[in-house]
């Protein structure tokens, strides 16, 4: 493992019951860089993300965080790791019963002994970073989809994480809002030197923000490298994915049905 790497994934296999969804996945996440994991829907991107943030257990030796085995972490070590990470979920995952500012205050109240006034100021700073300073007292149900994601991002940044995981930042957003979120992610890397992992299937967004791209297909890594390396990949599935070409053969529905029954 290179000392400039925050995390290394080495031969990760993943299953839901008997169904395998990831096959021998290998790549590294360099520090202070934006790593984008992309691929078609259902290729295992979110499952991979859940392994990286410790929500889905992995076998020992498969994911190393700064050389330490994530799969062998005890509950205390996992808690400490999570305090160093921030996660923006696809839906924002804001707590509906709390206002936007109260959402951001949750990790601060649990993990710090800061005074209420200090917490209030930190919440304002984070909301200002994502452009929601005027919406601190709004309830999540009063926000638009893009605002919910930005509020989720503010909450993910509350504890000043070293590494930020972002699940589908652009999905369901209009191009202007999506571009704004991309800009925000780039700013975080440039101003705070944050290590960021983004899961997306939006090609334009991925190529705009990525320092490193990892293309997944049916649970396997097809190619990992810079934007130019991925663009130059001769792999037919990568070419098809980047060229937005439909499968030449329609999906085999009989086989799909049989797999479901099995």
């Amino acid at each position, binding site marked *: 493992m290179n000392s400039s790497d925050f995390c290394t994934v080495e031969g990760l296999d993943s299953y839901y019951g008997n169904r395998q969804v990831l096959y021998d996945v290998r790549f590294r996440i360099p520090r202070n860089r934006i790593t984008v994991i992309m691929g078609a829907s259902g290729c295992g991107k979110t499952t991979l993300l859940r392994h990286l943030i410790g929500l889905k257990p992995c076998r020992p030796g498969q994911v190393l965080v700064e050389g330490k085995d994530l799969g062998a972490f005890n509950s205390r070590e996992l808690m400490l790791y999570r305090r160093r*990470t*921030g996660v923006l979920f696809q839906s924002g995952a804001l707590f509906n019963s709390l206002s936007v500012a109260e959402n951001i205050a949750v990790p601060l109240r*649990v993990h710090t002994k800061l005074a209420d006034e200090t917490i209030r100021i930190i919440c304002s700073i984070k909301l200002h970073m994502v452009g929601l300073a005027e919406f601190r007292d709004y309830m999540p149900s009063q926000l638009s989809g893009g605002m919910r994601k930005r509020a989720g991002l503010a909450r993910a940044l509350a*504890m000043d994480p070293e590494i930020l995981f972002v699940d589908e930042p652009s999905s369901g957003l209009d191009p202007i809002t999506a571009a704004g979120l991309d800009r925000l992610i780039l700013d975080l890397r440039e101003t705070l030197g944050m290590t960021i992992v983004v899961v997306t299937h939006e090609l334009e967004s991925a190529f705009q923000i990525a320092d490193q791209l990892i293309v997944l297909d049916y649970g396997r890594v097809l190619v990992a490298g810079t934007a130019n390396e991925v663009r130059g990949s001769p792999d037919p599935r990568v070419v098809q994915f980047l060229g937005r070409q439909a499968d030449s053969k329609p999906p085999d529905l009989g086989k799909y049905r049989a797999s479901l029954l099995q």
Partner: protein
Amino acid sequence: MIHWIRKLGAFAIEQVAFLGRCGLFLWLVLRGIGRPPGKTWFVLQQIRFVGSKSLFVIGFTAAFTGMVLGLQGFYTLSKFGSEGLLGSAVALSIIRELGPVLSALMVTGRAGSAMCAEIGIMRIDEQIDALECMAVDPHSYLVTPRLLACLIALPLLTSFFDVVGMVGGYLVGVELLGVNPGSYLDGIHSSVEWEDVFMGFVKSLVFSVLIIWICTYKGYFAGYDEGAYGPEQVSRATTNAVVLASVAILVSDYVVTSILI
């Protein structure tokens, strides 16, 4: 033959895993009592939700339960010429049995179902995952305050039920059917002992744990068995939680009574 043995084995493993999950869930909730974050404000909010917002429905149920007990008790006792014992009959039935059980059933229907649905929605909307990612223990943050609130609110609601129920019995027995008010009140005073009140109190504590355990567990694991997380799973979890908690209340009522009697 081997197919059936395999199925039986899989079923047994599934049940053991289920029991293990239930036990672990309760342990993690109880462990959260002494752990940060501070829960005072959240507990007070939940006491308001479980307790004060249930007052009307508990009072309404208690009044009519006491009234029907007064009516039925008078009818039965008058066959033996013992109408004077109506106060004792109503008070003991309510304090020992009907107060704790009906209060618990009402709280299950009103607050338990809402808790199950709320936590279930948090599960399908990744809010519980978000808590875990923030290194916040969801058991301690979401369930422990609800348990503490119910342990405080349900015994108080039960006491309220007991008083209103006896007043209901008085209205029907004394005001409507003409039982002597002195014998009604003296019956209560002479027959109700501390052990009777204690039994009702213990029952309401046991029911509190059962309601919160079952309703929050069902919400927390909504869709877990199916591996699918959506509104249908939350709705099913809520129905199952109410049915299971109600049955558990009635079964545990018998067990606690048989131990304390």
